[in-house]
């Protein structure tokens, strides 16, 4: 029995080190409030960092041991996507963060695998960095936002990126960064996260499917975090839209539900009934273990939670906890 976590972030030590004495990490600064809470300052925005974001790899490993998590497939903190900054800055922060993950993999090859961050505002630069991490650093793929400065990933400009990811065998994990579509509508009650993330992920599924990306790249490996948001629950209305609207059929010959099994989905849906619904809709071979370490929205004691679920068979639990990711990532 193993457990492999696809959804575990890193706020790189190089950020903490270079900002320690008030310096900046490629223009990104750090502030501390009166209660000692830490903030990254990115392009003028203050982004709160949780206490565990500062932990060293050794401290992370101790926490993983406590949680019963064997492997973190580490991805950089989404607050450092930096798509709205100069490409040179985003390329530099991407290289630094990715190199640090490479060092973690080198030191603890049984405990860490890597997903890169990429300067997606510059498609050739993003492809170059993806090639570097896949070919030279031994990564498994990359994590990107649901949109790049307002453009969804079905925009024709990104097709070379998708072709490169497909050819390199890179798994692309989708994860929001910055605000969501709910932020400007209803910024209260944490809804930009608790509804917005799920809405963004659903639009990402739909953009890649309706936009024909999944047909153009039949071997592409995509993982949608947060269980794919509302995708599995809302697929019926997407099918109806495809049946009734010509613009929905522009690129795809099959209804969107036919593409559900082309994606992977992490298991961060919080309730047993929702996880059961996800499994029953997309198939258990498509659901993978993820925890959202080290943020407050991670779910508590994730391994024992999965193990305790009465509506899942032992085979289903093992598929989710490790077998699916072992197969998909070759771990």
């Amino acid at each position, binding site marked *: 029995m193993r457990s492999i976590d696809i959804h575990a972030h890193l706020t790189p030590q190089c950020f903490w080190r270079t900002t320690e004495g008030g310096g900046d990490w490629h223009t990104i600064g750090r502030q501390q409030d009166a209660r000692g809470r830490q903030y990254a300052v990115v392009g003028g925005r203050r982004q709160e960092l949780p206490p565990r974001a500062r932990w060293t790899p050794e401290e992370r490993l101790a926490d993983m041991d406590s949680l019963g998590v064997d492997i973190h497939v580490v991805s950089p903190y989404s607050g450092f996507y930096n798509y709205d900054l100069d490409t040179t800055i985003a390329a530099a922060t991407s290289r630094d963060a990715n190199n640090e993950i490479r060092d973690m993999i080198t030191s603890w090859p049984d405990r860490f695998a890597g997903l890169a961050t990429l300067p997606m505002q510059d498609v050739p630069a993003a492809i170059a960095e993806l090639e570097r991490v896949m070919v030279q650093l031994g990564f498994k793929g990359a994590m990107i936002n649901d949109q790049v400065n307002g453009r969804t990933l079905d925009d024709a400009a990104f097709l070379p990126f998708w072709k490169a990811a497909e050819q390199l065998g890179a798994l692309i994990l989708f994860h929001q960064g910055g605000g969501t579509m709910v932020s400007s509508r209803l910024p209260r009650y944490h809804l930009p996260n608790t509804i917005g993330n799920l809405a963004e992920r659903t*639009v990402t599924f739909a953009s890649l499917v309706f936009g024909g990306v999944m047909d153009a790249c039949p071997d592409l490996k995509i993982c949608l975090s947060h269980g794919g948001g509302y995708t599995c629950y809302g697929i019926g209305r997407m099918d109806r839209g495809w049946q009734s609207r010509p613009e*929905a059929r522009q690129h795809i010959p099959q209804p969107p539900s036919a593409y559900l099994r082309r994606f992977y989905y992490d298991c961060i849906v919080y309730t047993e009934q929702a996880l059961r619904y996800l499994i029953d809709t997309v198939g258990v071979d498509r659901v993978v273990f993820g925890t959202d370490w080290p943020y407050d929205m991670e779910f508590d004691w994730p391994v024992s939670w999965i193990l305790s679920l009465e509506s899942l068979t032992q085979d289903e639990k093992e598929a989710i906890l490790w077998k699916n990711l072992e197969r998909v990532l070759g771990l």
Partner: protein
Amino acid sequence: MRTIDIHAHLMPQCLWKTVDAGQVWHGSRYEPGAGLGAVVRDGKRIPIQSPKLRFTPEERLQDMDAQGVDVQVISIHMPLVGYDLEPAEGRQLARDVNDEIAAMTRQWPTRFAGLATLPAQDVGAAVEELERAVTTLGLEGAELDTVMQGHTWDEPQFLPLFKAAEALGAVLFFHPQPQDNLVLARTDKYGLANSIGVPVEDALVVAALIFGGILDACPALKACIAHGGGPACFGMGRMDRGWQVRSEARLHIQKPPSTYQQRLYYDCITNSEAALRFLIDQVGIDRVVLGSDWPFVQWDPSPVAWVQGLQSLTAEEKSKILWENLEQLLGL
């Protein structure tokens, strides 16, 4: 055995008479074009997606007979709601619509019930019109958008409206804009504003009512959310987690949001049996009611037949959805 449909739209005859004469109806005008043309208002095109949108009440009754629907609870097609108008004109639009719906319910009292349009851009006027609609016109309540000119219903200025609805025993039916909603901020392609934006708006209004403390402030409020409340019930676990870990989510409510979802009603337009079963299991069978989205959904053969044919529902559950719950809620 009866069937009562909470979700049935109207483009009023008073609109058609005016725009067909080339005149402007409270900011709306008709524009011929592809298909059946469009009504244009506030700079936006509302395509006429079905010839049934022009139906007279008599033609509508024939269509209801064909679909096995005994009672339609009529509400305006939401793009016409007119929150953008000056308050005086918004009030007049609401009166015109509500008078027409009331006339339908008077002429065919066993076939039609009504939900009013309210000029929510002026909360005082909205309260007055709701009182008139319920006490004078005999309507069952009102239909509200999921957002009012960028304002959400959890904002304190709207509380008098919810207090009034509670005191009147009026049902509030929340329904988003199908073509103009928050998904447009992300993408305008593939009809996703409708297929994703509509249910996301439904989920957001569930969240606004719960997290905003409105259900605590108005414990007897009767509210129904269109399209099964969107994916609110499926995503409730994440809202509960947000409530656990963020003080801003606990600002108005002392209990997790999932404990409030059984306080709302939801229509059965979930687009799949599995989703409807999930909704029932989360919110309780007493909270799910028949909706057809007339005339926008091409049911084959009818919304009633769809519910009746579902394998995973008991006969008692089907009766509750088809009529018992709405009979009780609306006193029909």
